[in-house]
């Protein structure tokens, strides 16, 4: 490991492990996509037909009417969440990384506890506050709720990354007369770029998928994709192909995002380059 050359046998074993896991990962996804082109009856048929006459009924329903609105809402919530989390989180992460006191450990831990309360406990009070500020069913409300979920994670990830960056970097900049903000923005952020990109991708996806708060805090105006998908599962009706179609549609932008970003992380800067 760790950069050394591998024997072909070792390589084969590694590939096999990954491959097995990929089968596990992809099987439900392929089945999901496949079901989106079937009717309900066909989707439940055992043994499942590998060749069948595809129907686009599910996609017609998915693309018709206000369903696309949900995609727009999801995108807005996730993107703005990323921006907010980065703005607040990068500076907080950097601050924590430089605070070597007991206080910083406590603050850091306290930030994490924000994420710990179980959802069923928080829904009612959150609803009450947002209701009194007339913020229910706005994208703003969902953004705010997602901050509590994503900000602690981002802060901790960024803090750990900043801690790894050698302090000479910052000190050199100070000698050159830079302010802290300038150090952060112009020296450290570029160095931390791979981590920041990774964090952004994560936050985006977590926000995109979040269901509970998105549901309770929205009605029809600010509804996001998971809420839409789940609302199709009635107790007495269950349009599985439609759910699959919506999920497949949601897969596409996220897939593109992951492909693009993942490459960035790989191409990321190393400390060698910085030196």
């Amino acid at each position: 490991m760790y950069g050394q050359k591998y024997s072909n046998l070792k390589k084969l074993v590694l590939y096999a492990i990954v491959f097995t896991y990929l089968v596990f990962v992809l099987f439900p996804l392929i089945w999901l996509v496949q079901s989106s082109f079937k009717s309900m009856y066909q989707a439940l048929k055992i043994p499942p037909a590998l060749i069948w006459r595809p129907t686009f009924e599910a996609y017609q329903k998915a693309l018709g009417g206000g369903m696309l609105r949900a995609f727009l809402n999801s995108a807005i919530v996730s993107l703005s969440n990323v921006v907010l989390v980065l703005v607040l989180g990068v500076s907080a992460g950097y601050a924590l990384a430089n605070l070597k006191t007991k206080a910083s450990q406590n603050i850091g831990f306290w930030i994490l506890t924000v994420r710990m309360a179980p959802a069923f406990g928080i829904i009612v009070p959150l609803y009450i506050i947002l209701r009194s500020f007339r913020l229910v069913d706005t994208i703003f409300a969902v953004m705010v709720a997602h901050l509590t979920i994503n900000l602690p994670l981002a802060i901790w990830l960024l803090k750990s990354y900043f801690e790894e960056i050698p302090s000479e970097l910052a000190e050199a900049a100070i000698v050159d007369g830079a302010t802290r903000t300038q150090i952060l923005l112009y020296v450290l952020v570029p160095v931390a770029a791979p981590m920041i990109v990774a964090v952004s991708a994560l936050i985006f996806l977590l926000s995109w998928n979040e269901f509970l708060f998105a549901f309770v805090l929205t009605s029809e105006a600010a509804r996001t994709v998971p809420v839409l998908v789940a609302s199709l599962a009635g107790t007495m009706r269950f349009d599985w192909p439609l759910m699959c179609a919506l999920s497949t549609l949601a897969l596409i932008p996220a897939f593109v995002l992951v492909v693009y970003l993942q490459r960035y992380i790989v191409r990321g800067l190393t400390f060698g380059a910085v030196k």
Partner: protein
Amino acid sequence: MGVRVYWPPEENKLSWQYKFLLPALLVLLSIVAFPTFFLFYVSFHEWVLFKRGMPFIGFENFSRVLTSSEFLQSLKVSVMYTFSTTTLTFILGLGLALILNEQLKGRGIMRTLIALPLVIPPVVAGFAWKFALNREVGVIGAFILPAMGFMKSLLADPSLALSSIILADIWSKTSLMFLILLAGLQAVSPDLYEAARIDGASSWQLFSHITFPSIKPAIIIALIIRFIDAFNVFDAIFVMTSGGPGTATQTFPLLGWKIGFLYFNLGEAATLAIIMLIMTIGVSIFLIRRIT
């Protein structure tokens, strides 16, 4: 000419850190302040929505919740579920991250594919697995497994239901572990490995002396976040088994949801939420101490 050390004028001892922290702290504080206060306040009162009044009852909610048989059952289920899925996703995620940190061909594609389950909302993943594992009409449960001679119902057999929901969770959440650990691994400079290998270190030594210490922060975050999430999972389990058969998969979040939104006993629900919070904090502190 001597070098004059020049410090930015606003550089008082430690104050700039607090300025940078303030926005984030304020935002978080303002969001959680009321709910926290609310939870504590309500847990000391009897508040059942369809009954009048909200009398103060001290610790009665706590004693009632803690001694109920549902609590003990859910404790068992939650502990088993959380522990299993956290360790399994961790091991799997770490293994995959280590492998895909290497210069293997096609690792870009493989990484992308591994990250895909992140893109599926847990609710949908829950439904997908519920359908797939269904003993009567599911692709896996009614087709593949019986063909292999496995006749039991994965979701309805009390001893297997827990494993099934753990499986679904592993499918959903390993990606996150993988990404966090991979990011942590990426930050480790290859020069360190070079130097150590030149000195003749073995693979295991490289891992235990360089890799592991370097990614400790990533591990802590990954484990704690994973633990918190696993402890709080609701949607996927509810959708897959409704906590069943019986109460075989009724975790704390499911129980809390029932008490609050079905039985309308918001006092007891708040109590359970606080108990869960205390447990989570305890375990997190333990994890942090243990690893650092």
